[in-house]
């Protein structure tokens, strides 16, 4: 597979949008799916379907093996120590809720503090918010700087003796800032604070190594990684999964159930109650195979080049104001246009087949800090090309023409 012809692997690009070729620049929201992933779902349901982990018949055993195979693929992809450190969830949101809920239940008490940052997506703020009411904890925010970056110092400044957990994004979905999470984790660990990394934007674009990072929790969104919707991954160090209580109760997660009491299953079953998103998990294995075939380093290099190119052409466009110029920027180009609201930009771009997102991108705290109600955002995936960014720029010029005529 060659990265230059990669669009061919994605059937969505065979379709026209308003009679134009699709220029998909909304991958930070959700990525498109390669044919191998779509086919895998069809094949599983038509040839191999059964529930996993319960029955002993042929199909059940085969399906269970396929399901567990993806767990190992994920483990290797992120270099976790043990496949049992991989828990499937219904999304990254559920992965963070799982940690907030169980960690909060077991370790937090009134007056304790949770440290997050002003860059966080709502899914790495709202789950912690519930603990304000239920536990009386306080949430602190590390300051974002004028470049849309979070420095190690800004984290250090907000750590107090009461800080019990740090929850932080790997890559901002608005400014594109790639945070120095390894150093941040080292700092937090030096003060005995565990760290959850929201890896929704990190995992699809950056090479991951859980053992090297030494993070305690890492949340992944599968649909942003060329995989199916309805699926996420929580990586957690084994000691946490052993120590923390189960998140949801139901079938599949138990040891022994008696009228007097219940014991819970071993890892990772303890955290996978009920019938899981089996077809999605199996198809997600193909997403990882797809990424591995190209090589995440190659994808990173390709996207880095495109991000730089996009920044260059948009900076040359005098009407465009780019949002965020962090030291280390990944595949997100947020911008505003003089005199044109982001929603109008998105509608006008759509007419040309250019799909972007407009709004607060689930980051109202950050937008308030930036003094903006909304921004427009073009975000990149492996299938994007320089032509896509040229089309973006020319459609932006069309907006300016419509609004300034």
């Amino acid at each position, binding site marked *: 597979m060659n990265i230059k012809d990669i669009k061919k692997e994605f059937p969505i690009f065979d379709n026209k949008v308003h009679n134009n070729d699709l220029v998909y620049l909304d991958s930070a929201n959700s990525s498109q799916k390669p044919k191998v992933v779509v086919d895998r779902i069809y094949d599983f349901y038509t040839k191999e379907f059964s529930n996993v982990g319960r029955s002993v018949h042929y199909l059940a055993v085969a399906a269970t093996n396929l399901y567990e195979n993806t767990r190992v693929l994920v483990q290797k992809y992120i270099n976790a120590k043990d496949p049992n450190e991989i828990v499937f969830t219904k999304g990254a949101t559920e992965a963070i809720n799982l940690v907030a809920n169980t960690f909060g239940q077991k370790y937090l008490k009134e007056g304790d503090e949770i440290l997050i940052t002003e860059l966080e997506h709502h899914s790495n703020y709202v789950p912690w918010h519930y603990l304000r009411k239920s536990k009386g904890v306080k949430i602190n925010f590390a300051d974002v700087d004028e470049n849309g970056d979070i420095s190690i110092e800004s984290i250090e400044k907000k750590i107090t003796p009461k800080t019990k957990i740090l929850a932080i994004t790997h890559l901002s979905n608005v400014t594109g800032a790639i945070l120095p999470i390894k150093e941040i984790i080292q700092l937090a660990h030096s003060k005995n604070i565990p760290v959850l990394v929201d890896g929704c934007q990190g995992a699809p674009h950056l090479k991951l190594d859980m053992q090297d990072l030494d993070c305690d929790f890492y949340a992944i969104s599968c649909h942003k990684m060329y995989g199916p919707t309805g699926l996420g991954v929580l990586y957690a160090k084994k000691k946490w999964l052993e120590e923390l209580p189960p998140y949801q109760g139901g079938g599949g997660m138990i040891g022994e159930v008696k009228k007097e009491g219940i014991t819970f299953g071993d890892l990772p079953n303890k955290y996978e109650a009920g019938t899981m998103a089996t077809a999605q998990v199996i198809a997600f294995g193909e997403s990882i195979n797809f990424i591995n075939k190209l090589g995440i380093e190659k994808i990173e290099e390709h996207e880095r080049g495109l991000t730089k190119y996009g920044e260059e052409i948009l900076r040359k466009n005098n009407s465009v104001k780019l949002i965020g110029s962090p030291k280390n920027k990944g595949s997100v180009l947020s911008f505003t246009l003089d005199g044109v609201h982001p929603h109008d930009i998105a*509608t006008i771009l759509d007419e040309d087949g250019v799909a972007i997102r407009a709004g607060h991108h689930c980051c109202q705290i950050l937008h308030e800090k930036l003094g903006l109600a909304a921004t427009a955002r073009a975000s990149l995936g492996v299938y994007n090309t320089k032509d896509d960014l040229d089309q973006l720029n020319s459609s932006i010029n069309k907006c300016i023409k419509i609004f300034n005529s």
Partner: protein
Amino acid sequence: MDLKDLYQEIILDHGKNPRNLGKFENFNKDAKGHNPLCGDKVHVYLKVDENKKISDIKFEGHGCAISMASASIMTELMKDKDQKEVNELIEDFLKMIKDNPELKSNLISEDDKTKLMSLSGVKKYPMRVKCATLPWHTLISAMTNKPGEVNTEKED
């Protein structure tokens, strides 16, 4: 689809230079509206006199060209209308945006109808209908003293 239907000159004009933008001192009714999906916000202020007539109306807010133009045109048309007329115009507008091809009310002039019909372009853009209707739902809320904020995601 044609962008020219959506971004007609009237819309661009009202979007860029909204009429009745701001707040006045002696308002006696007001309501806020919010579209949490896009962050558009509008705050409608009214002075309703003893005859239940809107003697003054202004709005504050920020949002896209469609929502700003809609609020601007709405405030122009509502001045000096009484409660019954206000209700009739709101109903007529919301029905036009949803189903009806034309406005039916005879309360406003043909010129004003043309102005209001310039917002009908959103019909082809389902995601943008809420931009056009937010100020109108907020006006209903202000007129009826409904507590709380109008939220586009909590409508029927």
